[in-house]
């Protein structure tokens, strides 16, 4: 299969700038580009697909320079946000469209197999305008995959679907792509999609790729505060290291002292991040090995489906995720006295890649 590499790419598109993009997606890897809207994710895909050319830099497919190769010579599949099915052709003709240009042995059989795999055989003679979002998605996927592309690009393919369909199709895309075994670059602003789908994630913002890594790396050790906030590290504090006891540091964050595991020298300024799911709540007498225990009052409870987001005022604000059931068990309500606990090892010192 094929690897894809973007080297040192710059692109100006109106007011928008893509800057110094360096990225290598390995053969059969599922790579997700995660970023807020307007970050330049689609522009990067367009660059790889050949819809636009860089001002500087290169695009390589399996080491071969394709920077200025016409779109139709790249053999790259592209899934558009709105699926871009041809409204003047039936589902079958949509899927067959590209087989005129690429030699596919046994075309009719291959199409049937692929339609069976994606469960769209019954849609064969339907018109794209009569399909649901999920069906369109499957047809678009089949239309790309039939050509056995070297690389598949997906531009927020789930964003126009309802929540339920989204989940089903997300898993289906992952399964299909794993079955076929194809190098994939997937663009989204949805963290859950990124975690579920990605082998590796690249965080993009303002036309730059800020950090590349596994989802564990990205979500637990974000490179800077901006990324930390974007990936949901809701508790962020700035402070100064006051003591270092053999790798257990105490940081003065103004209102209190937080302990963390790090070997940063005393006197240094640091930014700390604690993920809300790493904070536990207790009522009454506390016996725990957690190094950080704070007493406070519940300030706000925001229900998020099966979990609640709880804000606790301990003189400073801590945000915790706890399950609905735990919420009921602790009889949480606004103003209730509570203790918030987290381990020193769950305190991430941002920018300190330990």
């Amino acid at each position, binding site marked *: 299969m094929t690897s894809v590499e973007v080297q040192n790419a710059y692109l100006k598109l109106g007011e928008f700038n893509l800057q110094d993009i360096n990225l290598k997606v390995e053969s059969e890897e599922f790579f997700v580009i995660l970023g807020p809207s307007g970050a330049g994710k689609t522009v990067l895909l367009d660059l790889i697909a050949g819809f636009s050319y860089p001002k500087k830099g290169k695009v390589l497919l399996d080491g071969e320079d394709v920077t200025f190769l016409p*779109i139709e010579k790249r053999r790259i599949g592209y899934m558009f946000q709105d699926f871009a099915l041809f409204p003047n052709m039936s589902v079958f003709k949509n899927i067959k469209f*590209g087989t005129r240009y690429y030699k596919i042995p046994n075309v009719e059989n291959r199409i049937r197999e692929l339609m069976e795999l994606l469960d769209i055989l019954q849609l064969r003679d339907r018109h794209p305008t009569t399909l649901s979002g999920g069906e369109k998605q499957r047809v678009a996927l089949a239309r790309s995959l039939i050509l056995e592309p070297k690389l598949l690009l997906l531009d927020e393919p789930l964003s126009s679907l309802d929540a339920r369909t989204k989940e089903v199709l997300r898993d289906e895309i992952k399964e299909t792509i794993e079955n076929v075994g194809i190098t994939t670059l997937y663009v989204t602003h949805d963290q859950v999609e990124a975690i579920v789908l990605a082998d590796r994630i690249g965080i993009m913002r303002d036309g730059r790729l800020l950090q590349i890594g596994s989802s564990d790396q990205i979500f637990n050790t974000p490179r800077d505060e901006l990324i930390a906030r974007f990936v949901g590290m809701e508790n962020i504090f700035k402070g100064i290291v006051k003591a270092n006891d053999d790798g257990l540091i105490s940081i003065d964050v103004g209102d209190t002292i937080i302990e963390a595991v790090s070997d940063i020298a005393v006197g240094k300024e640091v930014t700390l991040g604690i993920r809300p799911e790493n904070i536990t709540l207790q009522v009454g007498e506390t016996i725990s090995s957690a190094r950080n225990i704070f007493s406070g009052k519940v300030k706000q409870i925001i229900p998020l489906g099966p979990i609640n987001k709880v804000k606790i005022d301990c003189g400073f604000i801590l945000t915790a995720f706890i399950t609905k059931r735990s919420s009921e068990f602790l009889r949480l309500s606004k103003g209730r006295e509570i203790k918030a606990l987290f381990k020193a090892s769950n305190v991430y010192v941002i920018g300190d890649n330990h």
Partner: protein
Amino acid sequence: MFAWKYKTERTLIVFSIVSVLALILVIAPVANTLLSHSPQDLANTAIEPEVYNAIFLSLYAALFTSIAALVLGVPLAFILARKQFAGKSIVESLVDLPLVVPHTVAGIAVLLVWGRTGIFGAPINNIFGVQFYGTVAGIIVAMLFVSFPFMVNSAREGFEGISLDIEQAARTLGASPFEVFRRISLPLAFRGIMVGALLVWARAISEFGAVYIIAYYPMTAPILIANQYLQFGLKASSAIAALLLIITLMVFVLLRFLILKRKAEE
């Protein structure tokens, strides 16, 4: 509340009355022309060689004009719909220019370049022996000049209605730009293009001023009608007018049908 409502309704009533009057102004002459002749009367007029020759000439000169407009207008419409380039607004103005030029002026202007000594007319006459003054070829270039904007603008709307993603998707599936045009853009813009061609045809049939300058003979139907009116008066010309009216109404109905169908699809 009541007063407000009453006022609105009063406004609506006044507007409706004015609208009805306006519509009557349009309908009355058309209906009167059609109804003041019996079918027998029209048939008798239609079989006069002078009349059917003129109507036939109008129809087929307009048809060739439509074909020429298609060949010349569709590529231009596609470029205007899809590409940004320096001086695009100038090109757009040029396309619309014939809409504001008085038609007799258009006739003179066309004759000056297509006439025997014109920059187009002279070499074409030398090489192919084709003349434009007083010929069907001349009628067609005059018709084309005045009707070309309708082709370009209508086809352009057709192309603009196609999502760019669809064309790019076709490219990623291996189709060259020309293949994308042939298999995707052209079929999807087909109705817009057909509307343009029909508008050109209708406009070409009705053209008097420009054609009058470049070719009084052979006579197209509008020129024959004017000629009959000047020589023999209103009664002599009105039967031919009714015939031409019927033909143009049929084109018009077809056009409305295509436009409404396109709207329904959108």
